[in-house]
């Protein structure tokens, strides 16, 4: 059996814009092996986020197929894709996206509550411990610093032990110091929970930590 965890074939995404049909990404082919982190780099507006969304099943391509964790997600409906995401996929975003009026713990619990996990509290504590924030569990999201917020977001993304973790500029909103500690944390996850990282970044030094680097320019892989 192949150990390809993600396989992208001939992906093109077009959208309607005021200036007519706009091709955002074009004819993308790539694959990710289990346990081998990859990164996606490219200038702003080159289509990184768009591609990431399609690969993670958050959006559909205009043409082409995506095979994620053994399922051809491009031919599944939104609810089926959601099911796969809920079970085996984790996400970290540039702007954290914590629920402001929930505590750190409640934020981390969110994915488990959706899947109806009975041990959600214990598992969420465990995840917070793994990112080194168990002391902040009862703090509200608004009371945390940017770096802490991102740690909570990372705890949230790993709480369901995902097989693949998508991160879109996870350090983009952070200063140098917290940026490097977040980077260390993210790369340690590979070992910690055996997840495969797909990382979108501007930062070439970050990208080069990955086993493979894909470079996007004007919607096409170089």
């Amino acid at each position, binding site marked *: 059996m192949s150990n390809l965890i993600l396989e992208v074939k001939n992906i093109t995404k077009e959208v309607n814009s005021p200036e007519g049909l706009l091709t955002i990404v074009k004819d993308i082919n790539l694959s990710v092996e289990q346990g081998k982190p990859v990164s996606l780099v490219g200038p702003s507006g080159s289509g990184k986020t768009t591609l990431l969304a399609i690969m993670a099943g958050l959006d559909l391509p205009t043409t082409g197929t995506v095979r994620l964790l053994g399922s051809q997600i491009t031919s599944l409906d939104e*609810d089926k894709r959601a099911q796969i995401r809920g079970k085996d996929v984790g996400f970290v975003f540039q702007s954290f996206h914590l629920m402001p009026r929930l505590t750190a713990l409640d934020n981390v619990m969110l994915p488990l509550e959706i899947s109806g996990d009975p041990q959600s509290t214990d598992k969420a504590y465990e995840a917070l411990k793994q990112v080194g924030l168990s002391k902040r569990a009862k703090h509200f999201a608004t009371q945390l610093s940017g770096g802490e917020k991102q740690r909570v977001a990372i705890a949230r993304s790993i709480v369901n032990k995902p097989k693949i973790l998508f991160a879109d500029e996870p350090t983009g909103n952070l200063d140098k110091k917290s940026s490097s500690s977040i980077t260390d944390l993210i790369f340690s996850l590979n070992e910690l929970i055996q997840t495969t990282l797909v990382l979108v970044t501007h930062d070439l030094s970050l990208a080069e930590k990955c086993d493979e680097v894909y470079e996007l320019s004007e919607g096409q892989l170089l």
Partner: protein
Amino acid sequence: MIRGILYGLKKFWSEVFSGDLLILFLSIVLAVTSISSVGFLGDRLKSSMQMQASSILGADLVLRSASKIDSKYLDLAAANDLDSAEMSTFLSMVITEDDNLLTSIKAVTASYPLRGELKIVNSQGTKIKHFGSPEPGNIWIERKVLETLELMELDKVSIGNKNFIVEGIIEDYPDRNSSFVGFYPIAIVNINDVDAMGVIQTGSRVVYRNLFSGTQDNLERFEKSLEGMPANIRVQNALDIGDNLGEDIANSTTFFNLASLFTIIISVIASMMAVRRYASRNLLHTSLMKVFGASKLFILGHQIMQLTLVAIFASSLGLIFGYGLQHLLLSTLQGIINADLPPPSSRPVILGFITAAFVIFATASPYIKILSETEPIRILRNDFNIKLSSNLMIYLVAFFTMFGFLGALFQDIKLIIYIVISLILVTFSLYLIGRLLIYGLSSMKFSYGTGWKLGLKNIVQRGNDSILQVIIFGLSLLFLVVLAETRTDLVDSWTETLDEDTPNYFLFNIQQYNLDPISNYFKDQGNVVPDFTPLIRGRLLSAARPGSEDINFDNLMEREANLTWQNQLPLSNSLVEGEWWTNGNEVAEVSIDREIAESMNLMIGDELIFSAGGKTFSVTVSSFREIEWQSFSPNFFFILSPAAGRELPNSYITSIKLENSQKFMNNFTNRFPTITSVNLEAIIEQGKSSLASASLAVQYIFFLTFIAGILALIASVYSNRDQRTKETAIMHAIGASRALIFKSAASEFLILGLLSATTAIIFSIALSSVIFIQFLDLIYSPNLLILGLSYLFGIGFIFIAGVISIRKSIYASPMITLRDS
């Protein structure tokens, strides 16, 4: 879905207290409080009026005829599980050894009366009986008979060939004729003694009545089986009387309905705003949930559960408040309702829940749809704006179902239609005005720098959002102003009906030769000039329509009629059809009370035959009038033209207003012993206190709507607070001073408030006049004080609430605002 429901259950209270659901929650509480308090009250008011009406008849249903009624109806009633009693009334002399008095004799069976109370006392005033008939051979008489004939308890009297022993004095009895001018005192005897009297012969005028009472269902079934009854038997139903009972009560009921209708509409507006804010705040949450694997059904379950919980908790709270408020209203309404009230039915409870569910789901369904269909990719794009335009259809459907629902609720399609039309008109105008404003402002060139220019620019940039706010402000204000006007004028009109000049004495039996002495007496003693109205005792014999035969004047029966003749239309009357006779016109005509005319199927031009003073004569119906009975002046169903009435034998009646009346009237009775006087003070006092309590009740209900209106305004001010906060933070960050930001926001709210208040005031004049004329039968003239105050209040409130809503972000450090977002 189940998981979503459980999740919604779990997060409910934290979302209520976090504020997202709070305004929605509160507006539902208010809507239910209003609808249920009015519902509970209306329910009890209705049953109490029915009880009063029943006690006027002495029964729930009465068959009445001038000839003996077939006993099969009694059997039929028994078969329908109804109680029944019989009664016949006729005039006869009550005779003692040296005097006699023409008395109205009621001969009744032992089960009389079926409704209301009969109060029989002995000479010490102790109550001896409260229902039934005297034993055969005994008679109960009114005090007036006792005094006139100088009788004592246990004395003997006779009627025709039958002797009776006076057993008790009638203090009160239920089926008094509704008019207070009763001409003959009454006596009650056992129906089995009638034959022995031998006073009823062919041609005697006797009215036979069968009285029935029972449950509403049984009564209805019975009434249905009465179809095909001979035309000379008339059915009187307490329900019909109840409908006519008290125009003031009817008006206050209209007001209550109007108020709760407005409260519901305003609550719908408030919850629309609240739901909008709730949804846009929930969009991040929902998108995140989607990213983390929530299905569409999960989101649906979550949302529906939360809204259902809002519906349940908010309406339970509303019902508790509503029930409490109803109690409060009821205790203030004691003056109107004095019967012991049956407990309220469960209808308002059901109604409360349905209203809540309805308001919530009508306003929330578009958002539920949007939320459940959120694309998770919003998270990556940071795009959390809700566009409603694609859901216009849902809104339209929700809007019309809402009015269908309100129509079913209030059972007044006319009212609902007027409200819908004005709602559409006003919304459309507000929309246009908003558009014009934005168009006008955007064509101006702004250079930054001054706060108010920035504010204007913000209005333009917010575009549809600004228009929406103008609409919401305008609508909430509109309904508040209309209700405020209605409330004030209703209360004023009530105070006016019973003003200081309302007569407190009624005099009748005045003969021609008394007129001058009486006038002089009042002029000397109290400087009062009485106005005498001729009273002709007559009888309506028949009616005909010239040119057409076989007209069925079904309800017209030979009846006693008090007639008068007049040159001028009396002040408390207004002509509704036909024409009043011109001076010097020597045609025999009659003007009739419209309701009576309608009940007799009469039309202008019909001929009526009367007999009076030993003469039989014919008059032509020339006009219909509406009578204002509360005026307490002599009013007549039939007024003859001078040509018809002048020559007939008559006495006079008058009503006067006397200060210090007690002493005055004692002297008067001594000087004019033959003249009968009736003291109206008790009735007037009762009327006054009824109206005072109705006014108070109206204030309470108004207050409720007022709160709802305030809530709607707040909801709409807060609806785009998040966006404003963000903008404020950015403005701060790029170096704008607090004063500048404050001026900008203040001028924005000022403009919005000014526009919506102006439109609301203009339209409120139109809507109020429709409501006054169509639903309250009042004349409308704009109440400038109320309009002015409302105008200032509207602008001021929107301004202050608006400034308060962004105050926090203006005075917070920009750092915190950034962190918050």
